[in-house]
């Protein structure tokens, strides 16, 4: 009963939540130092191609590396985000609350863009998830994937996920909020889709407190 009441209040708050998130986003954007967008995109491009060169044809390993880098950035970014907030953070008590905050505030603060949110309420046996839809992708402004990365070489072959970093970032950031999520690019403008869509699905809410590996004897 209590949980039903809680979820209905947060649903009501959803509308104003979005407006607040947009306002926080632009406030944060004004406060953070800016980098040249081209330099930023080229640096990431150089990074991706360097990783590609290091790992040769092992596309899975490349994707994983990019995701890992994103993850370790994400766990820090969330702290910076909370530190720079001038007002108290809108509470992200539920997983779905993080969608607007990510899309409208955090993306704005770190990337200067906002994303649209599509929420997929979890049904019986299916976890909650949402999609972040971006029309611009500041990481990939000059990128045109060569043919061999555009489509899989064969059945079941992995695809280079140029934007893996985003997935890692979101995964890392939400991990710090005790949410273990799975994050995946389902649409990418680099592959000819008209938008970029990142799907974020909640896997597990990690219990508060230190993990088993940190417990004292």
């Amino acid at each position: 009963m209590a949980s039903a009441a809680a979820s209905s209040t947060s649903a009501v708050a959803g509308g104003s939540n979005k407006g607040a998130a947009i306002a926080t986003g632009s406030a944060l954007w004004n406060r953070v130092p800016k980098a040249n967008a081209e330099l930023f995109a080229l640096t990431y491009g150089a990074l991706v191609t360097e990783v590609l060169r290091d790992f040769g044809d092992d596309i899975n390993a490349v994707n994983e590396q990019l995701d890992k880098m994103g993850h370790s950035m994400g766990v820090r970014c969330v702290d910076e985000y909370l530190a720079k907030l001038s007002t108290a953070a809108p509470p992200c008590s539920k997983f779905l609350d993080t969608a607007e905050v990510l899309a409208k505030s955090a993306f704005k603060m770190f990337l200067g863009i906002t994303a649209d949110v599509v929420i997929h309420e979890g049904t019986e046996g299916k976890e909650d998830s949402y999609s972040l839809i971006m029309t611009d992708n500041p990481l990939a402004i000059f990128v045109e994937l060569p043919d061999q990365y555009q489509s899989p070489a064969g059945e079941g072959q992995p695809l280079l996920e140029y934007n893996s970093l985003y997935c890692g970032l979101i995964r890392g950031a939400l991990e710090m909020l005790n949410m273990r999520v799975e994050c995946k690019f389902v649409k990418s403008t680099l592959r000819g889709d008209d938008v970029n869509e990142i799907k974020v699905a909640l896997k597990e809410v990690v219990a508060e407190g230190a993990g088993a590996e940190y417990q004292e004897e």
Partner: protein
Amino acid sequence: MTSAAAPNQSLFLVIVGKNEPLYEAEFLKRGAAPSSDAVTRQNYFVLHSGLDLVENVAWTTNQMFLKVVDKVNHQQVSTFLTAGNIKFMLLHGGKNEDSIKNFFQEVYELYVKVSMNPFYRYDTPITSSSFDARVRAVARRYLL
């Protein structure tokens, strides 16, 4: 020779790197048949012989657009030398200098875009099909 009877219908663009051509395209007038093998080969020959002249002219000006560097019969070779020492060479049968300049300027912008792509390495052949399509669109606008 038959050169006077057959004014050059097509234009030929080659982007030349340090050691090899990086990109080439032939722009045809609407309805014109592609050049025969012999003509294509002759085009290559003319452009190739123009390369040395480009190096000479490059030191005489501080412009990137080097105008017409070579003339063979009715054919002229206009060249644009980018800051990265990549040469755009256009073989044509006497065209308005301004339109060629505009054409080169736009191709240069397209080239810069390609070279900003992290998957493109400097001085390697350009295989991007969208680059090809855009260059052809620019050629249609200024040259045909």
